[in-house]
């Protein structure tokens, strides 16, 4: 296999033995990008020269006997994370041109570990979307079938990993934005517990839901990446001061003593039979590995989408107010009156979906409507948290599909935002409750599109997720299956 097709841990072995250099590896990935990027369109910004320089630096570090867990590993970064000196767009025209003078905390951490940053991956504008079709810089394609969406909002991250245009990637997940594209692209994606990873330098969409996490080629890589980016950050008051375990230590042979809950609400009407079949098969493999199963009810799941599409837009309407054309980013210079300048700059700078959510959020917070919408949604959120608390008193993990169906065709749902919103039903409650959740591949549809299995756990119980995901991965014969 070529270098760009390998995993972090496989490459670390080769790098450690001196069989390859990071420069060779990075060149291999850049060659791969040259070969397939025209079709996939996973990147918004490619930082070719800098990537090679970082690779050389990593090789020198390694020679000196230094270098961290990601030394010399080329990564793509969702364009929602600030990278010092490298254009950051959040998939939006409104930031054009914005070159951050600072790194996000997770980027600092990756640099400390010696990672090579290739460039910025495509995404739905301000992480609002489930297909990566809301991007001002083009729509990335699903590497398994270029006519299909790659999922969103971390679509570019997922596509770049699946197409071997990087070794691994960082994304962000507000309502499923890591897990859903990971599922659609046949890779591993984990959304950590809220507070596990710093949000400093992550362009906020919905602050109480956003969390940064890795998208990788296998479970072990996800464990390596998550350890690298986790930890308390004094610059983020919502990050939690709790030790970061070595997640790779959780990867073991069996699942003896583990109880997995099967939430019946996640297997309801509207679930594609092929998806259900693949997930049920995955559950079978988990029980073979030693896990016990128990049926669970999460009765308020059905209200998750409604609550999410009030809370997230409400926070977004406020978070995106800073993009006003005054200090940085896009401004309509033809306007000379303040209100007109605001109006025109924001109307032209933001895309349709972002404007839609700003309007919904503004409305939901307006005086006279706050109680009926935002407050009610917050109450639903509490009920969902209680559902989960009850569930996790009976089981260690919840197993379910990630999405009701495999990736749809590009353009198929572009005029039907509501059906796109509803497709988020299986991932949204995880964020509302601040829990960790992962998508791990569990099969393929008859049309050749990947299907993911979702694992959710209680707060800071990522190790259980890794344990189960690894056991499943070991028992499935998907490894080495490549889309293109």
């Amino acid at each position, binding site marked *: 296999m070529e270098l760009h097709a390998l995993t972090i841990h496989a490459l670390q072995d080769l790098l450690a033995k001196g069989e390859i250099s990071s420069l060779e590896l990075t060149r291999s990935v850049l060659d791969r990008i040259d070969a397939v990027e025209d079709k996939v369109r996973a990147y918004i910004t490619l930082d070719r020269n800098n990537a090679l320089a970082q690779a050389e630096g990593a090789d020198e570090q390694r020679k000196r006997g230094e270098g961290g867990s990601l030394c010399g590993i080329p990564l793509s970064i969702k364009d929602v994370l600030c990278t010092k000196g490298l254009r950051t767009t959040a998939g939006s025209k409104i930031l054009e041109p914005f070159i951050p003078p600072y790194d996000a905390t997770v980027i600092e951490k990756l640099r400390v570990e010696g990672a090579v940053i290739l460039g910025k991956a495509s995404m739905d504008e301000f992480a609002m979307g489930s297909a990566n079709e809301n991007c001002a810089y083009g729509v990335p394609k699903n590497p398994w079938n270029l006519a299909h969406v790659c999922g969103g909002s971390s679509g570019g991250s997922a596509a770049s990993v699946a197409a071997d245009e990087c070794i691994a990637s960082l994304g962000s997940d507000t309502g499923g934005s890591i897990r859903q594209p990971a599922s659609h692209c046949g890779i591993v994606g984990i959304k950590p517990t809220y507070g596990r990873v710093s949000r400093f330098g992550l362009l906020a969409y919905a602050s109480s839901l956003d969390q940064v996490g890795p998208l990788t080629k296998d479970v072990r890589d996800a464990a390596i990446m998550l350890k690298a980016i986790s930890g308390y950050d004094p610059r983020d008051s919502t990050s939690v001061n709790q030790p970061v375990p070595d997640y790779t230590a959780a990867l073991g042979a069996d699942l003896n003593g583990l109880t997995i809950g099967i939430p019946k609400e996640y297997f309801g009407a509207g679930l594609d039979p092929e998806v259900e079949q693949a997930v049920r098969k995955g559950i079978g493999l988990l029980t073979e590995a030693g896990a016990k199963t128990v049926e669970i009810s999460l009765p308020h799941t059905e209200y998750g989408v409604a609550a999410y599409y009030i809370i997230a837009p409400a926070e977004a309407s406020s978070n995106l*107010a800073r993009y006003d054309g005054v200090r940085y980013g896009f401004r309509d210079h033809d306007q000379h009156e303040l209100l007109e300048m605001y109006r025109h700059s924001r109307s032209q700078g933001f895309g349709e979906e972002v404007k839609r959510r700003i309007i919904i959020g503004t409305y939901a917070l307006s005086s006279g409507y706050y109680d009926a919408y935002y407050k009610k949604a917050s109450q639903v959120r509490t009920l969902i948290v209680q559902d989960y608390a009850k569930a996790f008193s009976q089981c260690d993990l919840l197993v379910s599909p990630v999405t009701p169906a495999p990736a749809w065709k590009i353009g198929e749902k572009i005029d039907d935002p509501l059906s796109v919103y509803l497709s988020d039903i299986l991932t949204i409650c995880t964020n509302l409750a601040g829990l960790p959740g992962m998508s791990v591949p569990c099969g393929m549809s008859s049309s050749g599109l990947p299907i993911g299995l979702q694992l959710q756990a209680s707060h800071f119980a990522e190790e259980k997720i890794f344990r189960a995901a690894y056991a499943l991965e070991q028992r499935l014969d998907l490894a080495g299956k490549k889309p293109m």
Partner: protein
Amino acid sequence: MEFETVIGLEVHAQLKTKSKIFCGCTTAFGNPPNTNTCPVCLGMPGVLPVLNKTVVEYAMKMALATNCAIGPMNQFARKNYFYPDLPKGYQISQFDLPIAEHGWVEVEAGGKTRRIGLTRIHMEEDAGKLIHDEREPKSYVDLNRTGVPLIEIVSEPDIRSPEEAAAYLRKLHAILRYLDICDGNMQEGSFRCDANISLRPVGQKEFGTRTELKNMNSFKNVQKALEFEVRRQRDRLLDGEKITQETLLWDADRNVTNAMRSKEEAHDYRYFPDPDLVPVVITEAWIEAIRATLPELPDDRKRRFVQQLGLPEDDAAVLTSSRELADYFEAAYARYPNAKKLGNWLMTELMRLMKGEEALDISQCPVTPENLAALLAMIDAGTISGKIAKTVFEEMMVSGKDPETVVKEKGLVQMSDQGEIMAIVKEIIAANPEQAQQFREGKTKVMGFFVGQLMKQTGGKANPGLANELFVKALGE
């Protein structure tokens, strides 16, 4: 018809923390525009606020000093509106869970002491400043002030006159200064006030329609603006007209209020809890630790000045109206333990020369408390007369020199040598035989004339006590 005035005040006080409320930038005033800034207070993409704990502690101090109940659970909320001085498009403030509620302060006005209720105190960040270019239609933004911590202190509508409003403000101002948590500079905007005012017929329970007054940047302006508004509202009501609920700006040059354009006040702030900041839990132990750091407050100090130092109520009230003045008084008192006399000097001579509100910042006074005490002791010792002392004091205020030096340099030592004075006394009697005759005939009032002549000839240096005595003696001869 008789009307009752109903006033409620909102005070914004900048807290004297070294750094801003949500980032590490300095709060120093007067630096070049946009130099006290960082990505956080500039509202750059992806940055997050981190609460400065000192802000909470300062707010707790004010809460305790004004008899408030401190909320165990504090939440910050976002107040959303667009303006170029507000980089994030929202101000981080507090909404339904403020740090303190249900307090009160005692205020003396019009010979009465009344308790004015405080609805709440909450913490928030200040906005930046717009600077308008007069020559071209351009505005510039200075974000140095963005994120400077504020507390907003909201009173109940308990205030019944403009005079009482001014007294209430002076009380809050004094407390903030005593606590050393706000520099109280109204010109620089570190102590700002907005007022709500309405009238109602005496005896009526319901409030009348209120107007909001803004842009009053001194105690005097607050009182004047409120007095203007009382007259304006009364005139309208007596004419049978209605009061419009609106925001008015005080124009201190023309002494009138003007309505703000309605567009500027039509806001729906869409408050909601700020998801970037976790709630601040305030424990009893924390409250007690802060309470232990509280200094003696104005009311307590005034009581002590009355009870221990024997000062009259009014004198004690003036002398404790600012922490610096009271500190100054006590430092001088330590060397000159005649409270009444010292107090009089401070309130008449010193305040006459320092003028008005400057006297509140007596720490800038060129005369040290030690030198003032020395000056008063020189009067008591007869070294100089009370009248000469005033001249000496004026010189001390200019040069900052100690009184002994001033007296020596100017040759102002009191003449107390009997022989020396007697020689002059005799000369005066000889030169004024008519008045001498009158005195001898029993018209003792002429004594004033003789003493006056003596003071004139000695430049006021003759010991006034001796003067009388020597004239009587000389005239009797």
